[in-house]
């Protein structure tokens, strides 16, 4: 499939992933258990953009503020919008990663890993390389966690369980949100 066609026709996959992720996180108190793999804590923070992707004229809503205000996002979901980007915190183990996860590009904005010794404080070239590799390792840890969550979503998305269970669960969640 041509890349431009993928962008045009399949962008919904990223938006559905983020919307499903919010649903799962909200329903499970943040703790998402990936069958056969691990449990990852996912918390939606103070920033979100929603988009009506299937409309001819794109309509976006940007929300920023306290977590409780993200409830306004629910009103946008009720209008048929899906999440295009969201600031989230994930804890694959006992360390925090925060990022603005982007749906269409699957990109990581303002990505913060747990801290490492910055290279300018490192004394030798070897230390600088060590700091680089440590930072790279941390970046990959964060991305791997997101990839595991995405894989969990994807397996559900192409299964019969998606329509039977997940979609109706999401609909009920939106319907009963009180927004």
């Amino acid at each position, binding site marked *: 499939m041509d890349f431009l066609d993928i962008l045009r026709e399949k962008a919904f996959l990223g938006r559905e992933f983020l919307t499903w992720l919010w649903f799962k996180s909200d329903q499970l108190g943040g703790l998402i258990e990936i069958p056969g793999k691990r449990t990852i804590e996912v918390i939606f923070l103070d920033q979100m953009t929603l988009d009506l992707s299937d409309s001819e004229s794109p309509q976006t809503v940007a929300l920023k503020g306290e977590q409780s205000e993200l409830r306004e996002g629910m009103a946008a979901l009720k209008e048929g919008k899906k999440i295009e980007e969201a600031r989230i915190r994930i804890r694959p183990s006992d360390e925090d990663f925060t990022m603005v996860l982007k749906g269409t590009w699957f990109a990581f*904005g303002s990505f913060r890993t747990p801290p490492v010794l*910055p290279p*300018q404080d490192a004394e030798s070239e070897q230390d600088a390389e060590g700091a680089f590799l440590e930072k790279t390792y941390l970046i990959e840890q964060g991305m791997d966690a997101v990839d595991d969550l995405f894989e969990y979503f994807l397996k559900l998305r192409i299964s019969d369980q998606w329509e039977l269970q997940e979609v109706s669960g999401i609909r009920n969640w939106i319907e009963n949100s009180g927004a």
Partner: protein
Amino acid sequence: MGFASRSVSIIRYRVRGEMEGSFWDAVDSGIKKGAFRNTETAGDIVAAGWVAIEDFTDNAFAGASYHRANYAALALRIDSVKVPPRILEIHLKSETKKLLEQGDQKRLSSGQRRDLKERLRETLKSRIFPSIQVYDLMWDTLKETVYFGSLGVKARERFEDHFKKSFGLTLRPIVPYIRAEDLLKDESEKRALENLKPSSFVA
């Protein structure tokens, strides 16, 4: 903001294509081919290319300093100059006046005016400090994946283009669908992915 910063922005690419000969030799010659240097063409960009990830003034990469375990770590530096439009206008007016006084024309033709404007822009560029942008990248050569440190459309386009020119390899952003293609091995799963249509979450 580079990868060493507390907060980074990253987009992932899959590297596609083959390089000839030994892999790291080809990487080395690609980096040297695309190393930071002055550009010879007209336009806002006056210099561009690869520099060391920890030092944007280093375009020599002594001892293959970019090579870290299975990664190639680099930065793309882009120096650009934009002549302020009103400065250009001042010079254009004064040069036009001079030219008209010297010749017997009453006004410049649109072609002459365009040529003069371009010539003045190129001359004025050397009098202005460039704006320097530096974008980090890490190439995981085992996973054939590149992490690029900017989400800006222009920066990404320049990077994709410069990477192709340097290494002869194409970069494809790992958007969700492409990640999904990587993850699904089974033919029936791949077909199911291909046939997916958007779901409605509104009852």
